[in-house]
């Protein structure tokens, strides 16, 4: 797990915004290489790595799907002072943006920047004192106007530059833990599977574009045609000012999410296994959409039985997201155990046209 925690810290110090995942893919690739048997990058930039099972070919496969892209900003305009106007990539609350450290990724290299709210007298009177609005925020690179205008171009990407902070009690804070905490779960599960037998093939998938389009998941599902899919994504953890009924505890295990994107019997099997192994899990419910890659993955090709595993995360979509690494550990153990327990009877067990015997 120590190795995986180091990988996670590394993963939350690189960019890789939706549609531009190369920087994060280049960190995941070498980590997965020794843990899998073959690897390729999809045409949309998702990473597919297969670990062969021990059953007779052709083997069924389970895809474990984690999106690797991150939210951030993009340069929209460069003004006379060399300050950058920005637009968002992924969902952001502008109220967490003033005074954030960012990195501007230019063709000539990375530039540290600071997101700022202009002084009141530089704003229209009605916007001067209220909530910060994205249209008024600027990035100050510390460069003089001509230098900034020379180096930065419209369309350059801007990622958060907050560094990982370790808090007492196995907590890690930083940006992009959504969803690199889940990539860490998958990586640790692969590591555990290296030490035990599994009949099925495992596709480790790091998808592109979840935060904007979900197209990474659907195209990977089409390309790989897995028999089953598990989507791991972060979920809301209890925190000040977040509503209690929509949030889950940290350090009480991953959530197993229940709702229309989830295959009901597959979900129950996962739940039963967790209970048998005494791995703590929490049931989470969503009434319409899981808000994850499962939305499109489930309805790719002729339909893929999918479950959703959530890692409780505080302050989601801020640069100080907080995860408990114990939950990462528990989720990876559950996944590894689940994969190694898959046998030729499993698909029959979860057939929706069969009534439950028990």
């Amino acid at each position: 797990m120590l190795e995986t925690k180091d990988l996670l810290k590394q993963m939350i110090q690189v960019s890789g915004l939706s549609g531009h995942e190369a920087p994060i893919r280049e960190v995941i690739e070498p980590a997965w290489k020794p843990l899998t048997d073959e690897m390729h990058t999809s045409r949309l930039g998702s990473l597919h790595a297969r670990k062969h099972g021990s059953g007779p070919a052709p083997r069924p496969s389970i895809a474990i799907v984690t999106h690797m892209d991150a939210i951030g900003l993009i340069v929209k305009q460069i003004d006379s002072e060399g300050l950058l106007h920005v637009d968002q990539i992924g969902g952001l609350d502008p109220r967490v943006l003033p005074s954030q450290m960012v990195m501007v990724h230019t063709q000539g290299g990375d530039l540290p920047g600071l997101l700022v709210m202009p002084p009141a007298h530089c704003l229209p009177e009605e916007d001067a004192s209220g909530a910060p609005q994205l249209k008024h925020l600027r990035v100050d690179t510390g460069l003089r106007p001509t230098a900034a205008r020379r180096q930065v171009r419209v369309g350059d990407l801007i990622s958060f530059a907050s560094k990982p902070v370790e808090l007492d009690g196995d907590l890690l804070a930083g940006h992009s833990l959504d969803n690199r905490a889940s990539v860490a779960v998958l990586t640790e599960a692969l590591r555990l599977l290296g030490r035990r037998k599994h009949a099925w093939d495992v596709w480790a998938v790091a998808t592109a574009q979840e935060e904007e389009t979900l197209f990474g998941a659907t195209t990977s599902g089409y390309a790989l045609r897995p028999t089953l899919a598990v989507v791991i994504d972060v979920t809301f953890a209890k925190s000040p000012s977040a509503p209690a009924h929509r949030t889950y505890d940290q350090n009480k295990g991953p959530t197993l999410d229940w709702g229309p994107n989830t295959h009901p019997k597959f979900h129950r099997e996962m739940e039963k296994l967790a209970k048998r192994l005494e791995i703590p899990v929490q049931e989470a419910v969503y009434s319409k959409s899981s808000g994850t890659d499962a939305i499109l993955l489930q309805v790719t090709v002729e339909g893929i039985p999918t479950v959703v595993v959530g890692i409780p995360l505080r302050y989601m979509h801020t640069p100080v997201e907080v995860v408990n690494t114990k939950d990462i550990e528990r989720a990876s153990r559950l996944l590894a155990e689940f994969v190694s327990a898959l046998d030729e009877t499993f698909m029959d067990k979860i057939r929706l046209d069969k009534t439950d015997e028990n």
Partner: protein
Amino acid sequence: MAIRKKPNWKAPRIGAAELALLETLSNASGVSGNEAAIRRIVQEEINGLADDVVVDAVGNLLVTKKGRGQNLPRVMLAAHMDEVGFMITGDDGDGIFRIETVGGVDERTLAGKPVWVGEKRQPGVIGAKPVHLTTASERSSALTLDALRIDLGPASAKKARVGDWATFATEFTRVGPSLRGKALDDRLGVTTLITLLKHAPANIDLLAAFTVQEEIGLRGARVAGYAMKPDIAIALDCTPAMDLPRWDGSENTQYRSKLDGGPAIYVADGSTLADPRLVTHLQAVGDAYGIPYQLRQPGSGGTDAGAIHKTRDGVPSISVSVPARYLHTPAAIARLDDWKNSLALLHAALTHIDRDLLKGAR
């Protein structure tokens, strides 16, 4: 009398050592009322340099460096050690703490920041509700202290207590020609003052006051001014550069000061009217030495000069500030050149101070 540049004069250098000192000072925590960590760094740095070093009843560090000769002008230079930040004012349990701001911090810059809490600088974060769980109408009102908490994690529930101070956990960085840090206001002034002590001109008695509680009402300077009995006082501070373009492209007429404009000489602010003889002196020195400077636009705000000039029977006072953007937020930006020029202007101006300077009527 016109000022002529002294042929042998050289500005004290700002090199790697001075930048490293600024970095150490900017990263250290010293919220108003809790300046001890800063004072320790300054004391160590000036060890052996001065004739007299006193820590007074409120925590000011008062340093005297005598010139060569008798009855020299007593020139007080004041730089404040404190910075804006927070105090823990409530314990919600499980490592969650309520805070109040100390000094004029814009509450809208708090959400989503890492912080350091207490003497041991326990790391924590100020989070925010996930955007997914907010409504459009919620997002149209600013996040204020009511909704914000410091989160240290449940395992650290006992590692902070009500009354502890906290600061933004911002690491000093150089970005292009600029300096970026949480407490450039006024660790720039503190570093300038230490450097001036190391290169003190012999024509004056230099009274260096590293003051406390400037950000909550110029409180340290008031007693420092009384104790030091200066003939002249200069506050070395940071002033807002509000020189960004306006949203509609119209002229920004309320910029206060501008980056790359050189040291900002005060004429009038919210707390004092600068002594015109000192304004003229600083300008004349800048002109003679070819050091760029700007006159800070009169307006609100204040520096230690606002307190010192009213001590005893009055002290002719002025402020010279390094312009910096985004003061009183997690990170300010100043230009290295403006800092260098501030140090140069101050040093040159000190070498031309004599008893005649204040002979004429104000």
